[in-house]
């Protein structure tokens, strides 16, 4: 108890924050006018905000990796697919901190989930092998 915030309280705070984000994402996804309002195809969570973080470059790669890894867990618990580019982007972050096996693994996962990415993923894997990592 000395550390201040009770674990339970902290959890619920995170949950509330998560819900707010989820509802704004849902609103954005459903935005497609009056067209069929189906369920989103993917779990978005904080993925796009993390892309913006990457471009802004204010947060270190480790913090971004942790944020994305927690999205992987959320997607899994909801039984939803990760969106296009997610695994490849996580791979890019791993590559940036010399976690080479995970870089390769994430790019392979992107390929498996989205065969449309094969040519580009192979290009990146080949470049990586020849000594030019993702970043």
């Amino acid at each position, binding site marked *: 108890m000395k550390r201040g915030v009770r674990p339970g309280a902290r959890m619920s705070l995170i949950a509330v924050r998560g819900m707010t984000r989820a*509802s*704004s*994402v849902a*609103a*954005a*996804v*459903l*935005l*497609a*006018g*009056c*067209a*069929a*309002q*189906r369920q*989103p*195809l*993917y779990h*978005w969570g904080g*993925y*796009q*905000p993390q*892309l*913006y973080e*990457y*471009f*802004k470059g204010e947060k270190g790669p480790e913090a971004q990796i942790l944020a994305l890894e927690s999205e992987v867990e959320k997607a899994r618990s909801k039984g939803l697919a990760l*969106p*296009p*580019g*997610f695994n*490849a*982007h996580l791979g*890019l972050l791993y590559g940036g901190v010399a976690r080479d096996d995970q870089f390769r693994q994430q790019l392979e996962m*992107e390929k498996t989930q*989205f065969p*449309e*990415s*094969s*040519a*580009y993923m192979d*290009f*990146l894997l080949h470049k990586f092998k020849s000594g*030019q990592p*993702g*970043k």
Partner: protein
Amino acid sequence: MRVTRCTSGLFALTLATLGAGCAVSTPKPYDYYQYKQSRPASILVLPPLNASPDVRATYSVLSQVTMPLSEAGYYVLPVALVDETFRQNGLVNPAEMHDVGLVKLREIFGADAVLYIEVKQYGTSYAVVSSETRVTAAARLVDLRSGEVLWAGEATASSAEGRGSSGGGLVGMLVEALLSQVLENVMSQGHATAGVTANRLLSAGRPNGILYGPRAPEYQKD
């Protein structure tokens, strides 16, 4: 009296315009012939050109295009990796990236189509009556195999789209969400507005918008 009527007329017009997602009058229908011939499955989005004075515009918009296009049923190439690939090849600004030939783009990225975006407006203008943050962007989808232009469109969003004047429905919901975000943090106003613009520009199922792609259940039904 006359003034009042005029004002309410204007108000109604604004309502109609802002509700653009729903069954309001549609402009001249877009000719989708080439699009339907091509039926791209994957889209490469290049970092947008920025005609606004705000340097954040390019990456603010780029980070928010994946969701509408993916939910429309396309595979969207990972935007940050694509940007890195250009940088590693010595191309650091969007204008240089937009100059790369289609054959080269196809060779490296293997995508079926490329999306060129230009941010025309991004930022706050201080007008006499009230200030607003507005983001306007135009996009052009080009087939990387044939070089044909498949689609072009433009969208805008404004922080001044007031509560209840957004036409209700789902667009309205998003605008409400935007407004509460704006109230929370004035600094994020441009980015939040850009998110609305990106969704209006690149969601399928909108008048004259992009068509659904192969991964959407609505594919080839539009």
